[in-house]
């Protein structure tokens, strides 16, 4: 048995047929070929699968696809500037500038969490960032450059808003 759901995926109206037990991470990766959202664990601990649902960060590996119906969903693939271009979001640029990634596997989830943090609280402190990233595990960077990147990315997002 499948159900039909309609939602806005990265700004585009999307309708899919899914098994009701399908997880959002699986739907994105397997059915919609958006493999930027990663699956790093099976207990919702690692945060590699974070996407924005209704503008809020959620772990897509524990969210059932029918919950998307009628809602806007933003994934890592929806962040860039013009489609097909190499233009990036200020938070992506900040991660690149400050070496906030190594193997890149946790990175999409980190970015989605980071953007949500910066959106929620524009004047982030280091403690806010460290606390806010508690649900995202990185094994490579020791977090230091991620924290620096998030603070710089938040500042850049503020500056962009002010323009």
């Amino acid at each position, binding site marked *: 048995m499948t159900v039909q759901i309609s939602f806005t995926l990265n700004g585009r109206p999307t309708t899919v047929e899914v098994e009701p037990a399908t997880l959002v991470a699986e739907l994105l990766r397997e059915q919609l070929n958006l493999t930027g959202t990663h*699956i790093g664990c099976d207990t919702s601990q*690692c945060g590699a699968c974070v996407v924005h649902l209704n503008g809020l960060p959620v772990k897509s590996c524990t969210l059932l696809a029918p919950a998307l119906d009628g809602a806007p969903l933003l994934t890592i693939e929806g962040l860039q500037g013009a489609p097909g271009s190499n233009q990036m979001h200020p938070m992506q640029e900040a991660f690149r500038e400050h*070496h906030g990634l*190594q193997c890149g*596997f946790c990175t999409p989830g980190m970015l989605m969490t980071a953007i949500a943090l910066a959106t929620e609280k524009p004047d982030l402190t280091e403690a806010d960032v460290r606390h806010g990233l508690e649900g995202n595990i990185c094994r490579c960077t020791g977090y230091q*450059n*991620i924290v620096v990147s998030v603070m710089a990315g938040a500042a850049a997002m503020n500056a962009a808003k002010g323009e």
Partner: protein
Amino acid sequence: MGEVIGIGAAPKRKEDQRFLTGRGNYVSDIKRPGMTAGVFVRSPHGHAVLRGIDKSAALASPGVMAVLTGDDVKADGLGGLPCGWGISDAKGVPMKEPPFPMLAQGKVRFVGDMVAFVIAETPEQANAGAELLNIDYEVLPSVVGVLEAVRPDAPQLFDDVPNNICCDWELGDKAAVETAFKKAAHVAKLSLVNNRLIGNPMEPRAAIAEYEPGTDRFTLWTTSQFPHVVRFLMGALVLNIPQHKLRVVAPDVGGGFGVKQFHYGEEAVITWAAKRVHRPVKWVASRSEGYVSDRHGRDHVTEAELALDENGKFLAFRVNTLANMGGYLSTFGPNIPTNLYAPLLGGVYTTPAIYCNVKVVFTNTVPVDAYRGAGRPEATFVLERMVDVAASEMGIDRVEIRRRNMIPKEAYPYQTPVLVQYDSGDPMGCLDGALVTADVKNFGVRKAASASKGKFRGLGYSTYVEACGLAPSRFAGRLGARGGLYESATVRVHPTGQVTVMIGTHNHGQGHETTFAQIVSDKLGVAFENVDIVFGDTDRVQFGMGTYGSRSLVVGGAALSKATDKVIAKGKKIASHLLEAAEVDIQFESGKFSVAGTDRMKTFEEIAGAAYVPHNYPLEVLEPGLEEQAYYDPVNFTYPGGCHIAEVEVDPETGTVTLVNYTAVDDVGTVINPMIVEGQLHGGIVQGVGQALFENAVYDEGSGQLLSGSLMDYCMPRADHLPMMKVATHSTLCTHTPMGVKGCGEVGTIGSPAAVINAVVDALSHLGVTHVDMPATPNRIWRLLQNASLPVAAE
């Protein structure tokens, strides 16, 4: 026209764009036409006789195409997984090497041991089919700890391995050590445990295999740190596939840390299965599956003794270690607690006599193999804890006792009593730098401030050396390596002057696409953006041994440097022809070939173009084309080292240890890209801090169940566990690698556990605490404080 970016610069990474935009290409992202899904059925028991498997219900389940077991492996005449390193005891008796079948045969030996492989149209159907397998186990008692495993009445894993001892190995001059101990003014003793760790790269392991009947070729995509070695081990030794009929691809890999270094049974089973079902097969591990199947790290129990004279000079060091191998010998398993451990027990000190005995032991646990640092963090931990214990017992300052025993800079090259000869180093310089950066002189003020809040503050030092750049083949061969450990690189200059490098190392986060491009840009004077680095595909890259042991830049970078030298040499021949000058008069500098003493010159691009348009070429003496290859086998290991200083605060009410400051000054030789080196140091330090404070793989004795079997139960370091660290380099140059590099991937993990635990012990020393085993969890510290029976909370 882009810019030349040289050695020592810090350009932004070439690989970042795809990772930041979700366009990385990891194994689990790959789909193949007609792809099926495979699921491994794993033993739920630590130790059991496998009496029989009834496949009928599973085979009748919707979508299930095949169920493969150890009997099928046997029927197809396939080999077991090979061990890549053979060790021997002092009498030359080789280690016990029981077979490690792809799928269990007769017995299972750890929770997670592979029993069957179910292939179906979808993962859901494969899982449903796996549930229907009827497996008859006769459960046996398990033994998981090394102390228990060597007892005469312990459960025996293999009939022909008495007391579960794989090898009783030793290194050093036992008699000289005994003599020195008799003369000692003081002998310090220490018993410690080096806790078992799980690597946890964020990308779980995965593999896809495909067989093309038209060409009789296999392709395996796998999360590997060394695809060529997988091709060799699996093709030649397990599945009998001719090398030219097997392609192994390791595309973007989401972290390795050693865990993805080995040839795993899953890779062999899936490749074999793809031909049997005539369809591509994909398997992706869950994190929890990784916990019972990724190779684990560390797991030592050690007794150590240090003999000192009345001035605190080390006279001799004696170490007895029991090292856990788990249920079978993994690819490099027996090499880690022996050859990569005992030769580092000299550390940065002048200890004249060292003896180490290691009993390598089988238990009913996941096989143990190399994990970041591999053997060297264990050696550093024993030695640096021992030094602190000796200092405390003799009433000598911990920095002072280190200074009294350190190898002075001018004494290099320095021959240790345990095989290795350090070529260069400056431990005292690293220590001095770290003392300043860590603001040790004001520690007392900070400690008093902590005390006023009822907290205990401690400072811990770790001065260390490691052996990197694995490895000189000749040396490794003498120590039992069954392969060479050189590296290869090909530099292909295109007619347009752009460059593609094919290199045998593997990039899984270390930034090789950037660092190696800098080397080429620097040496050939071509724009950084015009250099591409290709790795991880046995069809595109000639050969290679992969990435581990901080060898990529040291060994692979040297091969690359040699290959670019050959390109320049060939370019000079072409230039001499074009400029009608003698070859000896051609100079190459900043991307230009010129005739010495004249203004006649050709650019690198012109030479590249001419190489492929050989009009008027003296073809009898000069071949067309501009592509050169080099293999490089080092003459020695490299010896990075340094000094780490950790500062912790302990809350006596809860036992919580908070890392409040961390300083590292490391000697990594020449720094090619400081941004990347700093990132590697950060990551390594936090892995070591994880071992010291949080991480522990815990087994239940008797049942062999892994109790820390998911990220819910195994505490990984998270962003709010850590302070901002201060890292710096204080480099002496390696004397035998072409660019003077030493390697930096593991230094953080090697230096940090001892620094953190020494800090924790320092914080609690006023209560009579002399040692804390890792991980220093709140529970462990709280219990220690209760047992200390001393006033805990500051009044």
